[in-house]
């Protein structure tokens, strides 16, 4: 009888332990690793811009919360406070796609020049004057 009770108690403690472990894991989960995850959407910078300029709300629904892979031509590279930003060209106008690079990709960003054709992936956060993509990493073609 005693042994049975003991077994039940151990069982409960085990379940409790697993529960706590799971919750702690969930709580401490880091941000999605962009480098290791596959892109949900692949698109050219121009197409992305055109979509946003046509309809911001539906584009938000389509692109936000997804890892997107964008290809385009570099119009400028800015470095400020250890953050680098690659600006992809807009053929038609003043706008652009601004790719804010992850700090771990800074060294590779330094090797790039204007007019280089590149592919990056990152998280799209929306549109201000430009389409903004954060936490970008370079994709080797």
């Amino acid at each position, binding site marked *: 009888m005693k042994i049975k009770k003991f077994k039940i108690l151990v069982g409960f403690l085990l379940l409790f332990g697993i529960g706590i472990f799971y919750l702690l894991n*969930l*709580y*401490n*989960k*880091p*941000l*999605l690793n962009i480098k290791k995850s596959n892109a949900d959407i692949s698109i050219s910078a121009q197409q992305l811009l055109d979509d946003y300029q046509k309809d911001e709300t539906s584009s*938000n*629904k389509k692109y*936000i919360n997804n890892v997107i892979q964008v290809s385009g031509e570099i119009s400028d590279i*800015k470095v*400020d*406070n250890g*953050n680098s*930003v690659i600006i992809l060209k807009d053929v038609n106008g*003043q706008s652009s796609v*601004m790719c*804010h690079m992850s700090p771990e990709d800074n060294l590779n960003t330094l090797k790039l020049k204007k007019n280089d054709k590149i592919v990056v992936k990152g*998280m799209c*956060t*929306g549109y*201000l*004057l*430009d389409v*903004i993509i*954060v*936490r970008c990493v370079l994709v080797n073609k």
Partner: protein
Amino acid sequence: MKKRYILLFSILFLNQIFSQEKYLAKDGYISFFSHSLVEDIKADNNQVLSIIDKETGEIAIQLLMRSFLFKKALMQQHFNESYVESHKYPKAKFKGYIINFKDLNKENSNTEIKGTLSIHGKEKEISTIAKVIIHEGEINISGDFMVEVADFNIKIPAIVRNNIAKIIKVTFEIKHKPYLK
């Protein structure tokens, strides 16, 4: 004669446009910080858009809520999906003016910024002490202020009420450069 008038007119008109000097920043920094007994939460946004009119000292700031990056995935998810509802209100905006803008210079950079802050579809008048440095063709503004979560109709569930401060500290640092078309 008529052509000359048109020429003269267009020169005057062009002057008008160029004298409206606008200063622009596309990569301003805004962060917020919540301190509670349980945990400290911080999120950074490096994609702040801001425009200052050098004639009037007017300032307009916009940012995307989803550009706030947290340390932990769950915090970011709760922030966007439950608290500020980024799918409904993707942007936060501020529109106001820098007080005594014309009198500011390198030595005298302490002033106040006043205006309307709009988050989560709610508007509130705020004013804050700020440093505005106008130097070498740049306008740099920096400072911090407090916002009350309840002012913007942001509901925090009871279970995490102790994890999140009722008053959040917002820090800003934005470097504006002349806007060239």
